């Protein structure tokens, strides 16, 4: 089971983001629009969404994209918890779920937090899904049904096509790129620090 599921997870984690982007643009977006938009014609008669591109669309698809990533990383981490701890717990008469919840998970928690941070950093830097799914309207809103923009979308829209390297737009895009780099770098340093700290505990 495991020897089959693990490579499958890894292969799934290797699906390029353009696939998910297309999925967001052509499948999930229109589906969400049908559910939460279109007024009378929609499934619930709601009119919350005005177009298929929205933060929700991008978010849902990104969530799907990160499932194999997070589970593969967490699996590695949970697997690194020594078998002797599991045996110890089972030998005392704990059930499997008690062992998992009270011994394995607490032991693996720091590593899992690290994995989630890595996933967050990937989500922030994700480009294709937001370019294709979240729209490009720069606005500040708490409504997930509206389309909004992200750092990566701005960079793409400023720098695609013929680029004039002296223009302010280009410079803005470079600045955005720098902030993105610093932001994700910070998250990665933190996540990797936690994961490494965790690994040392059992080496």
């Amino acid at each position, binding site marked *: 089971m495991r020897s089959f599921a693990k490579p499958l997870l890894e*292969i799934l984690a290797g699906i390029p983001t353009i696939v998910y982007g297309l999925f967001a643009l052509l499948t999930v977006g229109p589906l969400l629009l049908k559910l939460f938009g279109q007024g009378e014609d929609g499934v619930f008669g709601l009119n919350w969404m005005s177009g298929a591109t929205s933060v929700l669309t991008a978010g849902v698809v990104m969530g799907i994209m990160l499932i194999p990533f997070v589970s593969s990383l967490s699996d590695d981490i949970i697997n690194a918890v020594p078998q002797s701890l599991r045996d110890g717990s089972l030998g005392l008469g704990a059930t499997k779920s008690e062992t998992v*919840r009270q011994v394995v998970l607490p032991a693996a928690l720091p590593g899992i937090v690290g994995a989630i941070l890595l996933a967050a950093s990937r989500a922030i*830097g994700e*480009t294709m899904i937001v370019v294709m799914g979240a729209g490009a309207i720069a606005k500040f809103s708490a409504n997930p049904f509206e389309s909004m923009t992200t750092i*990566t979308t701005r960079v793409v829209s400023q720098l695609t096509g013929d680029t004039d390297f002296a223009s302010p737009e280009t410079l803005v895009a470079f600045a955005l790129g720098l902030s993105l*780099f610093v932001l994700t770098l910070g998250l990665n340093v933190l996540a990797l620090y936690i994961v490494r700290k965790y690994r040392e505990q059992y080496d």
Partner: protein
Amino acid sequence: MTDLSSSPTQPAAPENSLLTLNKRTKARNAAERRFKAYGIAAISVGLIMLLVLVTTIVSRGTGAFQQTFVTLNVELLESKLDKSGQRNIEDIKKVTTFGYAPIVKSAMKETVNGLGLQTGLKSKELAGLLSKSAVAQLRAFVLANPEQIGKTVEFRFLAQSRVDGYLKGRVTRESIENDKNISPEQLDLVDALVAAGVIEKSFNLDFILGSDASDQRPEAAGMGVSMMGSLFMMLVVLALALPIGVAASIYLEEFAPKNWMTDVIEVNIANLAAVPSIVYGILGLAVFINYRHLPMSAPLVGGLVLTLMTLPTIIISTRASLKAVPPSIRDAALGVGASKMQSVFHHVLPLAAPGNLTGTIIGLAQALGETAPLLLIGMVGFIASNAPETLSEGLLSPNSAMPAQIYEWAKRADPAFYERAWGGIIILLLFLVTMNTVAVILRRRFERRW
């Protein structure tokens, strides 16, 4: 033994018996089942998502591998194509695609009349069932075979995308109410021609091998040229990332002193592997195009950017496989008088090669599917129409790449291109899944527990 079986202790007190589950154990077992159910639920949700994704891709994408063709007998009139009758290739070249249009029109008309079909359509509307590429296809044939002028030749023309969509169910009579590209009368004729076997669907090799086409001709668009673009990028990545990555890992793992410098480098490499790919795109744009003035949109630049992106992955996996070779092997080699370098190249590296290969394949697969940096260095937004013929042309002339081509199609207004995009995804995923599977199998086969 018989006397013994009766001698053990009296049956234990009922509440202490192992044979009856006590209340607490029952409750705990129920909790166990609930916990298992949560896990199974989570897996099911994940599997359902996967299933939806796969079925979406397959159901929407397989259409791209089928295409509607119209088979016509075309009389290549000498009076139109070669007025002089000299079969002088220069003269024939002077006739533009515009000059071929009447020939196609009349061929269409004759086919319809020949089948005895009644239609009120004008000949222009009749020819409108064909792709706009039909005249170009005809002209290319004539230029290649001038001796055929004056004869009647059978051709398979692409049908225009609405007709194709109609046969695939994408276009319906309701959906074309406001469509000026096709009318209900034309669809009536299509039905009749399908019945007569003139119009038929068949396998579309051009989608796999052909080049992209303009906005007007989704039926002619193919992945072939962008596949070449991807191939040249992968060559660049392989040629640069593998030697640099392996050399860096060998130095870091075998020769470098363990001090804060190598620590910093190690942490940085791990970080770089997780930096968003678009940042590499910005870097490539600034360094290779703005500063070094390499040509925009060239697979060489794309390859360089992807090399930067893949290097950390390759270094990390190669180092891991080097680390997995036990020190006793090195000691054994050094013990019989091998130099440090000999011990690495004769013993450690061959043992680490499968891991290194796996890492390289996974890195290449990652690079093959990457889109974001390619957008920035301009590998989208134009039509890569000709397949490159030489290596330098392949590296330096503007081209697209598979994921960039898919993105390009997804952006276009005509929904006929969406089918192409899904079809492109299928091709891309076939490549990636093959590469990843090979990597997994390699690792499985050569994995060694020391």
